């Protein structure tokens, strides 16, 4: 297995606050990795820094052994749903087609085959019936699926997804996970910022515990342990061996 992403001694800050410190890890090809950690641990920041959307203070990142700007086409990104204005005058199909703007190029307009492709992607995420729906009229889970379709159409080899399962219902969650597994089957690599510790074992094969720095990283079977969870989340989460669940400690 080759490594598709190498991060070395990465650190980043928002103003005076160091959010990420000395983050190093490598992601092998064909894995489904979830990044977990408490609020404010720097999960979203990590993805933004990796993609060059937020400046880093130090460290090196290499994608497929190269700098990001040389391999941008091989990297897809599904941002958090709240990051755009959903009242923007456009429909679901149009948003999905944005994933192909890079291929289409300047001046030219998307043609019929692009539209077909976009419809295909919408079909894959179960949203074909909503192709011409104004995006503000979609529910949260539907908006998330539109974003996912837009990323799929990029046909990237490495995907970053910032909480794709946040605030979606069980059916959408299953649909999204089925797509992620399919991506993995095709040999693609997916990094997901995740919040729900209960589903980590079912959904992913690698886990990266993050709290300002990498607490632990490795295969679920060996790394997803009560000890690592406690180290990452401090005392606020208690891991119940029998009957998986999260309990907030009383203060």
């Amino acid at each position, binding site marked *: 297995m080759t490594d598709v992403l190498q991060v070395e001694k990465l650190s980043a800050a928002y103003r005076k606050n160091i959010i990420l410190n000395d983050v190093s890890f490598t992601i092998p090809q064909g894995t489904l990795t979830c990044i977990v950690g408490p609020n404010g641990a720097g999960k979203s920041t990590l993805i933004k820094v990796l*993609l060059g959307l937020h400046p880093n203070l130090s460290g090196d990142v290499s994608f497929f052994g190269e700098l990001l700007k040389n391999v941008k086409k091989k990297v897809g990104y599904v*941002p958090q749903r709240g*990051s755009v204005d959903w009242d923007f*005058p456009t429909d679901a199909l149009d*948003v999905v087609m*944005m994933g192909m703007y890079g291929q289409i190029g300047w*001046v030219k307009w998307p043609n019929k085959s692009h539209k077909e492709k976009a419809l295909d992607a919408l079909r894959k995420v179960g949203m074909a019936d909503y192709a011409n729906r*104004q995006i503000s009229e979609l529910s949260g889970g539907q908006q998330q699926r539109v974003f996912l379709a837009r990323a799929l159409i990029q046909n990237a080899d490495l995907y970053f997804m910032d909480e794709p399962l946040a605030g979606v219902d069980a059916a959408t969650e299953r649909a999204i996970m089925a797509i992620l597994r399919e991506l993995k089957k095709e040999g693609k690599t997916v990094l997901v910022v995740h919040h729900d510790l209960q589903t980590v074992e079912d959904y992913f094969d690698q886990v990266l515990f993050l709290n300002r720095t990498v607490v632990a990283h490795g295969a679920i079977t060996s790394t997803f342990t009560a000890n690592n969870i406690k180290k990452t989340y401090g005392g606020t989460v208690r891991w119940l061996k029998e009957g998986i669940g999260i309990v907030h400690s009383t203060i």
Partner: protein
Amino acid sequence: MSDALSHAALPGVVISFLIFQEKDFFLLIIGATISALLGAFLIMLIKSTTRITSDTAMGLILAVFFGGGIVLLTVVNRNSNGNQAGLDSFIYGQAASMIWSDVVITTILAATVILIILIGFKEWKLLLFDPNFAKGLNLSIKGMNTVYLIILVLTIVIGIQAVGVILMSALLIIPPVSARYWTHSFRKMMWLSGLFGGMAGTIGTTISALGSGWPTGPFIVMISGLIFLLSLFFGAKKGIVVEYLIFRNKKNEVLKLMPPAQIVREGKR
């Protein structure tokens, strides 16, 4: 942003006049362009180096530049040589006094702006909707933002001649906002807002030509406002009337589907 930049254009107009002592339209709008771009640059600088938010930075630049422009205008009026008359019409516009060469310059500038929009139509859309994603597609956000600012300033200096620095922002903001009530498509919205702006210009100018000494700019803006009011109520996609009709129809539908009222009620009436 457009509001701040149109106000920021004023000192440039006056300074350009002070330097060249001439009321040449072309020279004046070059002054306006430089001054508005400087305003834009300062807004960005304040935003990126201090904790001041962009709204506050814009308010700051708007007030300071416009105030400076008025001060300079007073200076010009003091040292009056009889040539400056009409300079203050840059504040309220002077559409009625436009001459043929003004029209030519305005047309060329407008054509340039439209061409730039057409070249990267979908790229502009992506930049406005989701800049982070645009960056992922290897588009230069900084470069595009710079071009965006330049064409915004160009648009402003074109309009200043017609309606003046104060009302210019109204002409930039109202037509697209009105168009939004008629469509959910970005492309149609662009066409419609152009159409609405053109309609406001034509009707406003015609009305002002009917009376003697009626101001052109304010009439244009008033018509623009009227179009907005019509859109607000009757717009096909989000208009208040349409929304109400949809709501009422749904209500009737649901009422029809409901089972007939229970004849026997429990408890006291």
